Structure formats: C-alpha cells, structure tokens
C-alpha cells in the first residue's frame, strides 16, 4: 500500500519562547545546541542531524508544556549525564530553569529532565543510536 504522502522526511519540531535572545543563551550556552535566526521572530536549533527545532518567540510567556512533550538530547557517556546535571544545577539560577529532575537509570541508560524558563522540557541521556537501530530491527513487542 502506498502512503497518502510518500517519501517524507521528518524535518522539524516546534517550541515557543518569550524572547529569542534570552532563550538562545540557554540553548547554546547550556544545552549546546546550534542556533540561527533567519527571522526576527524565530530561531532554528539543531544538533547532530539535518532536522531542526524551530523556536518561535511569541513575546509573552508561553504556555508551560508537560514533561510528556519533551525533546531529548544525547551525551556520550553515563558519567556525562551526571556531569550534565551538575552543570544544569550550576546554571539553573542564571537561566531561570524552573525544575531539574533527579537522575533516572533504566537498562544502563541514565537520564534526567529539566523544565526551562519558557516552559519547555528537555531530557539529557546517554542512549545511543545503536539502541534505536536494534529496537527497530527487533520489531513490535507482543501486545
């Protein structure tokens, strides 16, 4: 069966911020994302692939997201997850980070979440691309 919209590529997700320059300090300086501003009201964030995260400045406090709507960033090792959380705690006050969760560990993957000043949630983990490759190869679990 041919899909209604064949041969698509996932190109972007989208988040909101109050002010591009303020949020950019956090995205670049803390999260390590690339950022470019092709428009006054938006910046395009990226890391590690051709897809982007479009961040639109709405000039007002965005609606806070729930943690179930989050973006996940990879670091190389479990130790770097711990170091990342320490770095996030050190940057929390300066960047008005609302919340930083505890370290969670599941099947060798360490992670934590944080809730930024604009109400967006981020997860930092050491999950590898090989993990996703294996899951897709393994196929569906029995339901």
């Amino acid at each position, binding site marked *: *069966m041919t*899909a*209604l*919209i*064949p*041969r*698509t*590529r*996932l*190109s*972007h*997700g*989208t*988040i*909101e911020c109050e002010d591009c320059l303020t949020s950019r300090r956090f995205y*670049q*300086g*803390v*999260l*390590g*994302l*690339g950022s*470019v*501003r*092709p*428009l006054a009201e938006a910046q*395009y*964030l*990226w*890391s*590690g*692939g*051709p*897809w982007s995260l479009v961040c*639109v400045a709405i000039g007002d406090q965005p609606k806070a*997201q*729930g943690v*179930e*709507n*989050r*973006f*996940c*960033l*990879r*670091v*190389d090792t479990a130790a*770097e997850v711990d*170091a*990342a959380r320490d*770095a996030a705690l050190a940057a929390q006050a300066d960047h008005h980070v609302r919340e930083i969760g505890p370290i969670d560990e599941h099947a060798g993957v360490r992670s934590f979440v944080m809730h930024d000043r604009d109400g967006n949630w981020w997860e*930092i983990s050491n*999950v590898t*691309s090989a993990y*996703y490759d294996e*899951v*897709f190869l*393994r196929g*569906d*679990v029995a*339901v």
Partner: protein
Amino acid sequence: MATTQLERPASAIRTTSLERGTFLTTDLVAMRRLFEEVLDLECVRYAPDALYVRERGHRPGEPLAGQPYLVLDVHEVPVIANPQAMLNHWGVFVASQSDVDRAYAALVENKERYGLRKVQKPRAAHGAYSFYFEDADCNWWEVEHRIVKRQYETLRAIGDVV
C-alpha cells in the same frame, strides 16, 4: 553578524545530538495508521503503550542506513491533559511544491477516515510552501517543501540575518 556552528561557544552540557521528541496519543493503533498509511513513516511498538517512529530508509542495506535520524516517541494515555497547539507542531518534508498540493488534496479526501480535526490550506511563507493539519489527539503536523536556499542546513550555513 553571521553566527555559524563553527563559532559556537563551549556549552555547559556537551550534547551530541537532538535525538528524540515525545508526545501523546489516546489511540496508539490509530496513530500508527496515520504514520504508516498517511505520512509514510516507519513505526515499531517497543512497549504495549508506546511507539517509536522514524523516517523510512534507515534499515541495513537501505539508502539511509548508518545516517542519523530523529525519533518520535509516542505514548498512549487515556486522556491528554495538555493538548498541543499549532506552534507545537511536527514537520515533514516533501520533495516539491506539487507534492504539498497532492498531500493536501489527499488529506482533505481522507480527513474522516483518519479522524483529522483540521486540514488547513497550503500557503507560502519565508521560502516554505506548506500546510498544517491537526490529528485526532490535537497534535499538529506541517507538510512542507522549502526551496534550497531556505532549507534548514542552508540557513545554518548562512547564519543570522537579524
């Protein structure tokens, strides 16, 4: 002044990839039909209540094998407490403006079949030609085509224009 990736300052956290985005559905089976039958994406049910989604072509021996990909992580819940708005959408790229028009016509024709709440008309803005639609769970999607000089990787190379 242009700011490119090469000029990025050292960050507090040394992330290497934006690898995954997460969202919710109230019907994993219906959502999977949308991904596979409409958006032509690959799905795997990695837990009874959760699905990973990626673009096609990354399996061993396929054209994109070994290249990085973005993963969507979808969880099924009884009720979505925080419905998403249009400015929290996901985008898929198609190869031409004509493909956008064909996609729009196909979704209008199949709107009820896939439980779509809204399908907006295509329009051109900032070098992109696209339309938005809202699925049955209030998740928003953009089907877009961009001319080469407005594609995301090109814009990174150009740097800031404001």
